[in-house]
Structures are given as C-alpha cells and as structure tokens.
C-alpha cells in the first residue's frame, strides 16, 4: 500500500507522519498521531463530532483526506487549554452543565470556537446556526447554546 508523507501543525506543534494514501484526517489524528479528541460518530459528515479547525475554518475531519492538509494549521479541542487553564468555551461548557455523554462535546466546542473567533458577540440565532452541523442526542441543545452565549459574554467582558 502506498505510504504518503503528511506534515502539518497540530495545536501549534509540528507533526510529520507517513500514512496510507486515502486515510481520512480523522483516522490519521486518532490512530497515527494519538489525538482522540475528534470523534467518529458517523464518518458521513452528518454528526459533526469529528469537527476540527483547519487554517481557521471549521472542517469535518472524517471527510477530509489527511494528505490534503499538508502545510495546514490544525486545531482540535485537545489543544485549546493552555498551561492547564481551560479556554473560556471549555469553562462555559462546564459551568452550564452542557455535557452529558460528552461524545459530541469536542466537535461542539470546535464549531463554537470558529464562531467566536469571527463573531465575538453572536446573537442566539448565530449560535444556533454555528452549531447546526453538530448532533447532540442527550442535552436538547439548550445548555450548549447557553454555554456558547456565556463564553461570548465572558470574552467581551475580558476584552472591555
């Protein structure tokens, strides 16, 4: 089987691996690099649990071939907290009791992070739209929406 090189930064750290051509980014991250924070809930692009940020854009790692990410900057939920301090979104998800089984959580946080990076003070409708590609079966979404709105408020307070 043809092995191909992939090289990108993952949460700021350089990564280089040889992988089978045609390997999805999700499988490369989980099986080769050992970052299991993106989850494989469907491998169809319908659940959002595998969401990662590639060069500032939200992407589904299950539908992205790893070898198309050469030179990219990839962010996953496992890389959000710095020095043991949680990212404001992570803190807000905790405080809002927005996780139950937790399987969708890291994808939700990725989707929310891209939103807040571009839209620091989103409306509720903007939050709903940003989360719309991510499925949660436990929470009924409302606690997650509230967590994102709370994180946005705490961001803007810090900035003020």
């Amino acid at each position: 089987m043809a092995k191909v090189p992939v090289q990108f930064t993952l949460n700021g750290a350089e990564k280089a691996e040889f992988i089978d051509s045609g390997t999805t980014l999700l499988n490369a991250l989980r099986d080769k690099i050992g970052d299991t924070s993106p989850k494989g809930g469907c491998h169809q692009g319908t659940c959002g649990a595998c969401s990662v940020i590639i060069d500032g854009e939200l992407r589904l790692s299950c539908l992205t071939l790893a070898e198309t990410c050469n030179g990219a900057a990839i962010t996953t939920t496992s890389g959000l907290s710095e020095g043991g301090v949680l990212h404001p979104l992570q803190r807000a998800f905790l405080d809002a009791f927005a996780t139950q089984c937790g399987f969708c959580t890291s994808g939700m946080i990725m989707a929310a992070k891209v939103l807040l990076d571009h839209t620091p003070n989103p409306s509720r409708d903007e939050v709903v739209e940003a989360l719309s590609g991510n499925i949660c079966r436990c929470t009924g979404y409302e606690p997650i929406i509230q967590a994102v709105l709370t994180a946005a408020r705490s961001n803007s307070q810090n900035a003020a």
Partner: protein
Amino acid sequence: MALALQTFSTVKDANAALKAAGTRYLGGGTLVVRAANEGDVSVSSLIRSTEPALSAITVSGGKVRIGASVTMAAIARHPDLASLAHAARAVGGPAIRNMATVGGNLFAPAPYGDFTVALLALDATVNIDDGELPIETFLAKRESNHAIITAVGFTFPADGFRFLKVSRIKPKGVSVLSIAAVLEQAPDGTVSSARIALGCMADRPMRATAAEKALLGRTLTSDGIAPTLAAAGDGTSPVTDPIASAWYRNEVLPVHLGRLLLG
C-alpha cells in the same frame, strides 16, 4: 484495492488520469469520501486538481464565473454574490459549507443539491476543460459525465432572484423541496419572463416549465399566480425518502411556490 489519492496541478492531467477504471474526481469530499467511508469499494483511486482557476470567483459586467472548487462558504461570503448567499447557505451546516463545492453540488442526488436548483433557475452554463454546456443538458446526463467540471457561469439577474428551501429540521436540514426563481417584471408589474427550478421534485433539479408559462403576463397576486400554482406539479416525479414522500412533496409544492412568489 486500497484507496489512494492522486493530485495534479492541471485539470488536463487530472482529466487524463480519470480515464482509468475505478477513478473518481475528489472535490470537497462530502460525497466521494463519504461513499468510500461507507464501504463503496468501486472506487479505488481519487483524482483531484489544484489548478488555481478552479477556486476563483470572477464577477464582471454582470457575468459571474464560479470555479468548480469554490465552496458554498466562499460564495456565501463573497460581497458581489450577496443575493445568492442564502442559496449557498442552504447547503449543510457550517463545516459542510467550508468543504462542499459548486462542482460537487451539481452531482448531489436528491434530497441534496439545493445550490444547483439555484443555478438552474439562473440558466447557468457548466464548463469543462474544452467547452461548456447548458446546465439542463448537463443535468440530464450527469451520470455519464467523466470530464472534470471547471466552473459554472451565469448572468446575474438585476434583481428578481428568489430562493426557498423547505426542510423539517432547523436551521440545517435536508430538503423537503427547494425552489429557485428568476423573474422579470414589466413596469406594470406583470411578469415578463420567468425561470423556476425545483429541487426534490425529481431525482435531480428540474424546471417547472408549465408553471413558468402560466406566470407570463400575470401579476404576483393571489389571483395572478393561481394558474401557476395549479401547474406547479406538471411533469414532476418527486423522490420518496425519509424526509417526505412523493405525495407530500406534490401536495405542498404549490403552497410553498405560492409563498415564494408572494413573499
């Protein structure tokens, strides 16, 4: 055979590679990688091209050219395509829109392919490496297409572009149906030309030609559009899928068309 990806810098070389058996062109991956993940073992080689023109949007003199690799997100945020933004945003959630391409959408089977419904109403042309063809011609035999789509082109209507997607899940759900319309009205308000395209009313986007005809010379009032709504279902053969049955789609098509025309 394991799956492998081949990348070419030109469309020409990629087209040559696509002639081999078991190959398929990789756009944004939302259709092709999904199929591979789901166990479609008929494809063993994915081909893509990184030619820059595939990712370009040009707008000049009312003419629009959108490269086939342009994503729905790129269309939605392009300042010159603002009136198309809601049709681009009708596709998927945010992550899908960052991946799904114009070229891929042309091949998306019902209940997908909402943006193509818009392109059909816009009377777009579909470009390949050595020519172009009308979108209706392309759609009619898209299964037999083996050439890489390079771009779509259309003339931007001054105004009068209308688009509606009906889905059961909000804000992101696949279509019960989608409708796009490009209407021109005479100074007295009567419709002087109309192109109406429907999604999910057949296995691929289709024109509602009887409805279009019935609209000519009519005003956009409840009474004025009545013949159009009566003709809306002519020639349709809607899909039945988990979202809705063919019966339901036919029943609500006139309702939604009416709301789009009067809205």
